[in-house]
């Protein structure tokens, strides 16, 4: 049986990247779609005050206040991607730093950091997210902080396990025995090794971040109206689900497609990168 030709990229990687590129283009072009906040009281609502359906002017129709649903979706995707990228970078950076320090330096630092990690892993994410949301002002920063605060523990555990495995490897001990400082050994020998693992993990983390941001916003604990986000668009659209189901289906499909695209990228990397093969499909 002929195998996959060497160097050919797996379809999952291509498909995931294509979908993400399409969403990124939509997010960048969001201002071209119009204002997500300004209601069109003359043409955005029916004479009886109901949202209008899809038309040439409003390809996805309008919402309950007569605002362009496509513009709101584009801005909502922009929020989702911003949150996914920012919280992904922050949570992985914190997790990797915690895992590296705990795994390499051991001792009291390891005990403190890994018990904190255990607490982080044991937290029910939604409840904890709501608690943090209650003490922070609403907005994009709040969502990024919540997701970062809850999502760093899993990469920390991954990196910690990897460092425990690596620290007895000859080249790491050789680095120590040559008189390099602990930080130099971490920077030269351990960081490059765990970087590939974290790169492989990041699409899975981003997929979780997209879904969790939508959950928080749906529960009014993330991006609050009138600012659009995919979660609060689903929440708002529920009131019209019987006569304008597109108001729920469009943002719901966007969340699903974004999550799936990140997972496909992760899956595509899994077939190419041995580090990624160790990660489960859904990450957590």
């Amino acid at each position, binding site marked *: 049986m002929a195998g996959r030709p060497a160097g050919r990229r797996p379809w999952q990687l291509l498909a995931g990247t294509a979908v993400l590129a399409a969403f990124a283009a939509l997010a960048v072009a969001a201002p071209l779609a119009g204002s997500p906040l300004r209601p069109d009281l003359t043409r955005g609502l029916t004479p009886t005050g109901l949202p209008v359906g899809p038309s040439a002017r409003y390809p996805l129709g309008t919402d309950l206040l007569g605002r362009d649903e496509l513009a709101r979706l584009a801005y909502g995707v922009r929020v989702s991607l911003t949150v996914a990228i920012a919280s992904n970078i922050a949570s992985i950076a914190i997790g990797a730093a915690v895992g590296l320090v705990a795994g390499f330096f051991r001792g009291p630092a390891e005990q403190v950091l890994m018990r904190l990690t255990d607490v982080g892993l044991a937290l029910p994410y939604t409840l904890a997210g709501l608690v943090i949301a209650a003490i922070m002002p609403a907005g994009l920063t709040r969502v990024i902080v919540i997701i970062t605060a809850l999502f760093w523990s899993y990469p920390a555990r991954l990196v910690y396990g990897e460092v425990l495995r690596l620290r007895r490897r*000859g080249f790491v001990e050789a680095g*120590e*025995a*040559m008189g*390099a400082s602990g930080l130099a050994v971490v920077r*030269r020998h351990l960081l490059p090794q765990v970087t590939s693992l974290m790169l492989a993990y990041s699409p899975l983390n981003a997929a979780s971040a997209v879904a969790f941001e939508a959950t928080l916003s749906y529960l009014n604990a993330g991006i609050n109206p009138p600012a659009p986000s995919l979660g609060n668009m689903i929440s708002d659209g529920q009131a019209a689900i019987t006569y304008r189901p597109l108001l729920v289906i469009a943002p719901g499909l966007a969340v699903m497609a974004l999550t799936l695209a990140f997972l496909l990228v992760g899956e595509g990397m899994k077939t190419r990168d041995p580090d990624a093969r160790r990660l489960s499909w859904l990450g957590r």
Partner: protein
Amino acid sequence: MTAPPGTPAVIGFEHVSKVYRGGRVALDDVTFSLPPGGRLGLVGESGSGKTTCVRLALGLERPSSGRLTFRSDPYPRGRRGLRPLRRQVGFVLQDPYDSLDPRMRLGEIVAEPLRSAGRAVPGRAPGEVAGLVAGQLAAVGLPGADLRAHPSRYSGGGRQRIAIARALIGSPAVLICDEPTSSLDVSVQSQIVNLLLEASRERGLALLFVSHDLDLIGRITETVAVMYRGRVVEAGPAQLVRSAPRHPYTRALHDAVPASHPRERRLARPSAGGAAAGGALAGGASRSGCVFAGRCPRATPRCHSERPPTVREQSPEGPRTYDCFHPISS
């Protein structure tokens, strides 16, 4: 080259013991010293404590008891304290496939001791550092090596040469070799051994060479310490210990080496005083008695219950010690 009498040892083990978690004794009252420019061999089978000695000497672990010295000063505590000492110690580890970082390039690997010592800060005189690295690689038989290549391009022997270049580039005072030839082809082993010997002689390096091969140790080092289950059971001039062992375990180790020539094979037959060579490891003796008693054909009930004292013996070749109630007479 050996140091004049009275010169402090580069590395000294004084009654050093190492007990791991769970009570596993890796080293039990081990004493030896490596004089400046001297060549000391540690020999013994797997589990005898040789690699633990190397790890202690490199400062990767601390002894549970006893005193470890570097130029008569005790080993400092902590990474920061150990740093100046470590920069005077070069080392070559057993597995060349594991001891070189697969993600680093040849130039970075060999220059790493210089970077660690602050003598090759990236961005400062890179040409000078590259010249040093290229020169060092040429000295170990890799002239014209591509400094941007990854170690995966090299075979086991090539990688061990890179490891030797890395060990020597910082001009260390001592070179520690932990079975550097055990994972190499026979054809490459002698090249690596000759390279190490040459480096030790030319640079006046003290050499601590660890091996399970008594014959190899006898060819490389001046003195040898024979280890069994964490104890030094016999120590003395390498040629003397090899040709006329006193401890039954040393004899067993000697007899276990397969001879290549039929005449040598006849000569290598176990003698009456020889022990059960190649028998099971860790022969079941209690630590209160002789550690080798469980496998020793000369053992008496006393060997199982009482630890043999260290007997000191003077010979024309030099002093020799052994721990045995029933030594093999020459």
